[in-house]
């Protein structure tokens, strides 16, 4: 068994593609049509294209508990997904300029530095830098 994919729930796949590619810089690896206008869309990091794929999953639109859970996480400010970066401060500066809203500015916790932003698709995302 191998771990090759993680999924992230999004309300609007088209909007999610724009945010994750144009703002965060991921690139599309797979994009195929499914039933009812839904698509199977996965993204990868430009610098790690054979790494794990990120699935933009329209779960909240089709399964109510998913929406409820996503709302509760958002309200509490809890990031369910995290991405590793070389430098949290640099990413913070870059993303803030692009209009991304952070609920936690770069902060230290033990042996890492982290920050949390809103992905505009219903999720808090945590950026992590190992110190």
């Amino acid at each position, binding site marked *: 068994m191998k771990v090759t994919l993680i999924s992230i729930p999004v309300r609007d796949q088209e909007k999610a593609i724009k945010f994750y590619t144009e703002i965060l810089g991921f690139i599309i690896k797979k994009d195929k049509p499914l039933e009812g206008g839904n698509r199977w869309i996965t993204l990868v990091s430009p610098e790690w294209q054979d790494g794990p794929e990120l699935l933009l999953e329209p779960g909240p639109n089709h399964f109510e508990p998913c929406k409820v859970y996503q709302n509760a996480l958002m309200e*509490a*400010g*809890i990031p369910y997904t995290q991405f590793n970066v070389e430098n949290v401060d640099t990413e913070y500066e870059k993303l803030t300029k692009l209009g991304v809203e952070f609920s*936690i500015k770069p*902060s230290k916790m*033990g*042996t890492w530095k982290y920050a949390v932003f809103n992905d505009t698709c219903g999720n808090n995302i945590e950026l992590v830098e190992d*110190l």
Partner: protein
Amino acid sequence: MQENEIMTSYEREINRINNIIYSNKEQIETVIGVRNYIDNNYDSDLNLDLLSHLRFISKFHLLRLFKKHYGQTPRQYLIDKRIEKSKEHLKNGMSITETCFAVGFESLGSFSTLFKTKTGKSPSEFQNEQLSRSKL
């Protein structure tokens, strides 16, 4: 630090936990220092004796602290670092023997075995795959 009224409950919880488990700043500085040292010297002959002397602590204490904060031992961390760096060298076309020594391994046999265990491919399989990919 942000104003209390705009802090999310996640941030409050993180700060609470931070104050409990990461209160010993000196300990944190020690393990971060060791990790940085490994990052900058992974290609040399590193061992626990050397690392513990650098930070003036006993090697068993260092082993325990590093594992506590990074979830793996210094040796496991070092091996992962060397494998990660060796992948870069192989991608750039460096020979397998050169790569082995460039990242600090002392025998080709142990490098090849570890590489295969960690990546699922032998160094030559990995390199051939990378080089043929770049030709497409």
